[in-house]
């Protein structure tokens, strides 16, 4: 056997981790989702931009156009509006922003709006500095303009109304930053506009809410272990799930089921992404 054949044989012996096929399956699902989301974003953003142009309200304050898209008004107590909608490629960053705000005569709504705005600003600042650091490192380590080529970063802010009644609304705001690695965050808001307060898990599940959530989550983690004994969830002693508390994030599904949301990396490996448990 000559040297090259030996090297090749050794290369072919690289051990393949058992979880590779799970990771590939997850990536396929994720990729498909991102693709349809991206396409949807593009068409939505294009439509919003056209409408804004038509109405002559294109307001280019710091690079952000006011959106023209309202979500249908319900009940009259409140409405969720897209206050910033922006889609553009700037300095290699592909921005797709749809930022919501709650329009209501309510302190809770005002607090939520301020919080969303602050988070969006922080995300944009962080994305820009991450991108600059990456570019600097790229060229400092010998990367050429040609190799840099079409490299771009995706910065996405989008929201989704999960459920609403005449007086309550549950919605999530998703942040994503994607380049070499992808990071995403989901913030949940559950508002009772009639009483001007946040809806809690105790409101939905009663006084035993902690126990109900914990039992349900532990059962779902247990059920996630596959035939080969593989699970994305960390064991409790290695930083895995222990209990929910008042800071645990959740949204309310259309059928009234609360869905508890854990950020990436908190109770499961990054490959699992944001983890959600419907509490039945």
């Amino acid at each position, binding site marked *: 056997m000559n040297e090259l054949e030996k090297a090749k044989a050794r290369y072919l012996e*690289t051990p393949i981790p058992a979880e590779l096929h799970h*990771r*590939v399956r997850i990536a396929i699902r994720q990729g498909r989702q991102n693709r349809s989301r991206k396409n949807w974003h593009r068409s939505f953003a294009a439509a919003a931009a056209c409408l804004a142009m038509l109405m002559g309200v294109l307001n280019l304050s710091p690079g952000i156009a006011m959106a023209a898209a309202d979500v249908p008004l319900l009940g009259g107590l409140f409405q969720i509006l897209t206050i910033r909608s922006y889609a553009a490629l700037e300095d290699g960053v592909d921005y797709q922003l749809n930022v919501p705000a709650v329009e209501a005569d309510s302190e809770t709504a005002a607090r939520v709006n301020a919080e969303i705005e602050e988070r969006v600003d922080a995300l944009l600042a962080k994305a820009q500095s991450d991108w600059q650091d990456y570019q600097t490192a790229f060229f400092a380590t010998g990367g050429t303009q040609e190799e840099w080529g079409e490299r771009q970063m995706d910065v996405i802010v989008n929201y989704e109304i999960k459920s609403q009644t005449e007086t309550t609304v549950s919605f999530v705001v998703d942040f994503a930053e994607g380049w070499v690695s992808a990071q995403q965050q989901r913030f949940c808001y559950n508002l009772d506009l009639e009483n001007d307060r946040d809806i809690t898990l105790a409101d939905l599940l009663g006084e035993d809410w902690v126990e109900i959530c914990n039992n349900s989550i532990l059962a779902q983690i247990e059920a996630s272990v596959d035939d080969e004994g593989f699970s994305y969830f960390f064991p409790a002693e290695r930083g895995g799930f222990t209990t929910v508390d008042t800071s645990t994030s959740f949204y309310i599904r259309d059928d009234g089921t609360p869905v508890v949301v854990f950020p990436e990396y908190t109770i499961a490996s990054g490959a699992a992404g944001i983890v959600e448990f419907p509490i039945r």
Partner: protein
Amino acid sequence: MSKKEIDRLLTSYLIENQAKLYRLAYSYLKNREEALDAVQTAVCRALERQDRLRDPNALRAWVYRILVNICYDQLRQRQHIVFADTDTLDTGSYEDPLPDDSDLAARIDALPPDIATIIRLRFYEDLSLREISAITESPLSTVKTRLYAGLKKLRLSLEGVNVIE
């Protein structure tokens, strides 16, 4: 080919060739977790950007290009990478002692990544130089120059080395 067919073709290609993709990623990163992440990112990105794949015949080269770029990016993030300038590449003289580790696989790993890429793709993955030129986005002539420089550096005789375009 319809969009649906491309999606199906791409998905089955990725599933069937996951081990190959992992091996290639591992050969750059030498780290199990990072190699898994790189494959996951590449698969995700391929699915996400499948609309940019115009020619289904170029599918393999297209997927490898995505993966190789991700591995380079990862290496750059570690700031370990030094890309070779072929003109100044020190191919060593025959009087130089051979490196202590005479294991060829280790010597290939020690090459600058853009040269190691060509050697790996050509000899481990049996890709043609044309495909390698598409993957590395460099002209065929550059691929050849780098391949020869790499082989020379490895002290491999070109005799009996099958260099198919």
